[in-house]
């Protein structure tokens, strides 16, 4: 797992306490709204996201920049790439 700090996202989505699979549904929904090259920050407390989000990025061709552990929840950073 890649850990990052001080990433400046273009869009942030907070889904802390929302249940699985919202971490993927919201991710997909938000990424559709982004321009190529923009960075999405997604905040979730769901442990399954540690595996699911990097996997999703690999499958969809988007760049997984890394994550930050904020204590009670995780922050994941994804850059939108052209397919």
């Amino acid at each position, binding site marked *: 797992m890649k850990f990052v700090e001080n990433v400046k996202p273009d869009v942030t989505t907070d889904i*802390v*306490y929302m*249940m699985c699979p919202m971490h993927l549904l919201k991710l997909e929904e938000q990424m559709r709204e982004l321009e190529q090259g923009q960075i999405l920050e997604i905040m979730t407390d769901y442990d399954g996201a540690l595996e699911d989000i990097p996997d999703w990025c690999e499958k969809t061709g988007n760049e997984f920049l890394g994550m930050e552990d904020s204590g009670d929840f995780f922050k994941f950073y994804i850059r939108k790439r052209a397919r």
Partner: protein
Amino acid sequence: MKKCYFDHVATNPLHPEVLEAMMPYLKEEFGNPLSVYEYGMRAKSAIETAREKVAGLVNAKSAEIIFTASGAEANNFALRGIALARQNEGKHVLVSKMEHHSVLNSARFLEKSGFAVTYLPVDRNGFVDPDTVKKSITNETVLISVTHASSEVGTIEPLKEIVRVAKERNIIVHTDAVATTGNIPVDVKDLGVDLLSMAAHQFYGPKGAAALYVRQGLRIVPLIYGGIQESGRRAGTENVPAIVGMGRAAELAKAELQKRIDYLRPLRDKVIDTMSGVERVYLTGDRVNRLPAHASFCVEYIEGEAMLLLLAAKGVFSASGSACSSKALKASPVLLSMGIPSSLAQGSIVFSLGMGNAPEDIDYLLTEFPAVIKRLREISPYAQGWGEREEGGECTVKE
């Protein structure tokens, strides 16, 4: 026999247009909103349309409305969901003594889970003093819950002032607006609350559909775990017909709100003014800041349930104290918290009017109710008075 229903805080009859809106979703439109084919898509669309209408009733955004099955569920969700979400910031919650059992018992659950809870006192009219709220806040306080209005005594709380006090310390405020939403103007932006509970069957919608307004950006721990319904915040296959009904009821309530208030208030006033002239019958709750269709009394020397049953035998249907207390044959904790002596609190009766009540129904009530009081007092063992007065003194009529 003439039948007059005066228990609208218990529930309301369905508005005919609400039933009409619901019917397709009870018959051919039976789809699960999560299904990916046409049945599901139409059900989903119906729910989202209803969500917009409910949001419109309280000046919220659609995304801020989470549907629940009842006002009690919305209250449980608010209390537990926010307290648990904020517990790293503090473990102190304030609730008023006027709250519905679903708020009070949720608070007691939080106490057992390690939270400190302060139960805010109320005055003789059921008002929570914003200054008392201010003095009760500590560095650990994470949530304040005060009802918008009491369904037992009709008092409308000074919620805006309470929110102002809470916001000086950046504390989240929830209000149980089940008795007010759809009955008086309720605007979440104007009130400034962060969460608000409402229920369809309080404004001529169906039972089984209610909602919690959650201000955008506020984190809340789900009450019910499972699938992704309500954006992952409240699992469970949606009660589509009831939600559709709630949406239509909300639309009608918004359009007809002032008309309803203007119709009901004079009828309520007639009940209050007439009954205040009957010996030892006392209005409970504030005379001025009260729900427009609500008239509640304590009647000395006789017991509430006896009044209810004799009135019901005459086709007049009402309530005594809170539903929860009356079933358990306990004096209402709300009345006791207002300082009403327990003996007097046992004589509580609540008339809550609705759009189906005609002026002649009020006249009928005002004929039968005094007659029932007279009859019960004749056989009351306390006909000559209580004897030794309990602590707390008499409940006096407010001028």
